């Protein structure tokens, strides 16, 4: 399928916060209550539409356990967007955000857009981190913020798409050098832009298989 741009994302955060579930909800529109834990890195993709343009998101879902950091770090490089996820029912995962952020800033391009996500918003009764705390952290560090539920799908689309909008805006503003692939942005194959037959479905879920 043709696309105008390809954005590379990375999803980071402590183990068990729901990174893989968020990705699955976004690419397949389903929730798998018992998802295999992630070893190393998994990979997913989906097409979205922004400003009438087809944008392909290529998403790297990383393992959250600390031992994997040295391996997953290399994936920050070349990412245009990062979803930094914590679990609103586990304060620990919120407390670790600073470390994650330092890591991300140190190993990524300085223009990377970071979206802070407080996941599992459906578990209101077990909430351990107030929404205001998430907002405050985001404000303080210049991140976008949202609470999501991979289970009910609340805000999941928005989280991925708003990140893309921000990146898109930065491209319009000339902040990103789109010719440098190290920024995690690629311009689609030229011929595809002149193919009107393909520009239909906005964000139909399709996994990584065989497009591109």
């Amino acid at each position, binding site marked *: 399928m043709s696309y105008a741009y390809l954005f590379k994302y990375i999803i980071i955060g402590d183990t068990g916060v729901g990174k893989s579930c968020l990705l699955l909800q976004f690419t397949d529109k389903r929730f798998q209550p018992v998802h295999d834990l992630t070893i*190393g890195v998994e990979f997913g993709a989906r097409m979205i539409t922004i400003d009438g343009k087809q944008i392909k998101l290529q998403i790297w879902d990383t393992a959250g356990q*600390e031992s994997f950091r*040295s391996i997953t770090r*290399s994936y920050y490089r070349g990412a245009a967007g990062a979803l930094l996820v914590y679990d609103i029912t586990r304060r620990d995962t919120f407390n670790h955000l600073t470390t994650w952020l330092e890591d991300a800033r140190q190993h990524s391009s300085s223009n990377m857009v970071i979206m802070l996500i407080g996941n599992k918003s459906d578990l209101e009764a077990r909430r351990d981190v107030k929404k205001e705390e998430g907002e405050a952290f985001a404000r303080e560090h210049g991140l976008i913020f949202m609470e999501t539920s991979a289970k009910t799908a609340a805000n999941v689309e928005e989280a991925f798409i708003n990140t893309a909008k921000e990146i898109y805006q930065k491209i319009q503003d000339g902040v990103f050098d789109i010719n440098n692939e190290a920024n995690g942005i690629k311009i689609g194959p030229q011929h595809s832009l002149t193919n009107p037959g393909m520009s239909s479905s906005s964000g139909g879920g399709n996994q990584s298989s065989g497009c591109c």
Partner: protein
Amino acid sequence: MADIEDFRSSVDPYGFKRTENFDYDCYEQFMSKYLSVLARRRSKWERILGMKANGHVVRSNKIKRYVRKGIPSVFRAQVWMEVSGAEYHRRSNPGLYEAMRIACHDKDLIEVIVTDLDRTFPDNIYFQAETSSEKYAKRQSLFNVLIALGQKNQKVGYCQGLNFIAGLLLIVVKDEEKVFWLMDTLINDLLPDYYSRDMLGVQTDQEVLGELVKERMPDVTRMLDAVGVAWALVSTKWFICLYCDVLPTETVLRLWDCIFYEGSKVLFRVGITLVKHNRAKILNCRSFPEVVNIFKESTNDKFVINCHQFIQAIFSEPGSLSRSHIDELREQCQQRVVDNKHH
């Protein structure tokens, strides 16, 4: 196990739900031939083991050859214990497993293990939460083994990946203490530093695999470089899980037969063979996701389902793989990994 198996069952003989796209025809075709192989191997092993009153298996070239041809499932636990040295450790440390299991454990260690209990083989009937009957109660055993292991190996603690290995071992070996010693032997004797804090051993071996592929198939290496696929992306799980939850179960067990005898070198053989077998497909790719897909598919096709042929292939296709060469590459690659980390 396999001789009473229903080839069309949606659950495999080890309790794993088969994937939606599982190729039943291909599997049945393979099994109908493999059954006679299994019967032949079984009678050979019976002859060997029957001669020893104490059930000991002494390492020898003959046993090594036998192991490569597959250990029958009835003897698997016993032979793994013997040839790996786990049985020796168990006997030398009576009561140690129990002591480690009931020791006072670190709170954080308990927490990280518990987080992963329901994320270990969620599709396996032995590990599902709903089933309460004793037959299916492998979760508690999984916790016991992992906590005892972390207690004994404090430098490792708990590392994800160990849960999958322990899980499959529990299904096959069915004895917590033996599983504990098999894992302890893997961690301390058979694998180089895979499960330590920074996984230096895994990072190193991924690079080594890259070098071994480059020596044999430089065109593949050029292709991967061109589209930006790093070995860490495709092979992290291969090494950390010893191909468990990656290759089909029967194939994993045949591979583990060899690992328990020969150690970690076999892991490279599998990696090289997978690449070699899919070389043409990889070279045909034009993009990063295509390559990633080929690697995904390569662990679930006809070639790997036929475990007997696949294990033969790993000992022929990669060609010679001397220990000294591996050691040399490991040294170089480890240096590279360490250097990389510091800038």
